[in-house]
């Protein structure tokens, strides 16, 4: 009987591959503006003056936020296609890269993060994510479900293609135990 981990073998075989083709940059939806910056620090009650005023610097930990693409953009197919209370959007940039051959999973969570900060981002900068190299894929069963930990390396750049940060981000994509029990 094949082991469920065998389903992940195609992904494990692709460790080392950069899934961003030809230096493709996935740009954040908007340039950093005062309103977005204010909201980022507001929930943290973070009153450092560096992050206020007309020459504000973005908190370093906000790069991931400002490099996120839109959930939906004009001309794209709808993402809200079900009226079910807990239905998920059809697409989300938060789900990370899901290459063809990746086993189906219904849940995901961030697990680990490491970053080297190279330069600041300021009001008016537009951030993007360049590169998307899979550096680890480890199938694993945890107390929440079966799936795999994947680790990705990428850079955050600004509109001048200057590198602001080098990041290593890990996620756990999984089938929750309750769902797996239903399938069995």
């Amino acid at each position, binding site marked *: 009987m094949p082991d469920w981990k065998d389903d992940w073998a195609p992904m494990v075989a692709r460790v080392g591959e950069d899934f961003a083709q030809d230096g493709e940059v996935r740009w954040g939806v908007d340039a950093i503006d005062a309103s977005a910056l204010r*909201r980022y620090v507001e929930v*943290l009650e973070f009153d450092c003056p560096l992050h206020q005023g007309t020459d504000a610097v973005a908190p370093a930990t*906000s790069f991931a*936020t400002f490099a996120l693409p839109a959930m939906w953009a004009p001309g794209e197919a709808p993402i809200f296609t079900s009226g079910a209370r*807990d239905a998920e959007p059809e697409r989300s940039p938060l789900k990370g890269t899901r290459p063809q051959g990746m086993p189906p999973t219904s849940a995901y*969570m961030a697990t*680990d*993060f490491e970053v080297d900060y190279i330069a600041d981002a300021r009001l008016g900068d537009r951030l993007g994510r360049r590169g998307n190299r899979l550096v680890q894929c480890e199938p694993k069963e945890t107390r929440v479900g079966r799936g795999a930990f994947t680790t990705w390396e990428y850079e955050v750049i600004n509109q001048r293609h200057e590198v602001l940060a080098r990041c290593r981000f890990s996620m756990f994509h999984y089938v929750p135990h309750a769902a797996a029990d239903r399938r069995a």
Partner: protein
Amino acid sequence: MVDWNEQRHWSDVREGDALAPVAFPLTVYRLVMAAGANRDFNAIHHNTAHAQSTGAPEMYANVMLLQGMWERTAREYIGTAGVLLAIRGFRMKAFNTAGDTVTVHGRIRRKWIEEAEKGATDPARRHRVEIEMWSDNGRGVSVGPGAIVAGLPF
């Protein structure tokens, strides 16, 4: 309240010094604000029923909110002239759920002069500290222990 006019200097820092801990009560209200603020709309962070269907006990704080907590805590120590250079070992090992209070702690693990930065435009990049960082909640350490590497004016 932090007096941002006061600046800590590298020469003032001693290995073993503790950062002032910062507490972040996690209410549903705050988690919803966080989703809107940092755009992590994954429903595990604002929908209890959905979070529980994925094996979590309750909706829980997202990675960007938790990282921001570390940044605020470290920034309050290094001041406005300090430079945040790296985050290491940011491992979310337990859920930080609605109803928890997350408290972020830090301690100076080491200080050194980074010779590779000799001649750097910003001298704060040269005088470095490694701050051991961790978050805990009512059930123990939930994030880390990891580290923030920062630079301070001499």
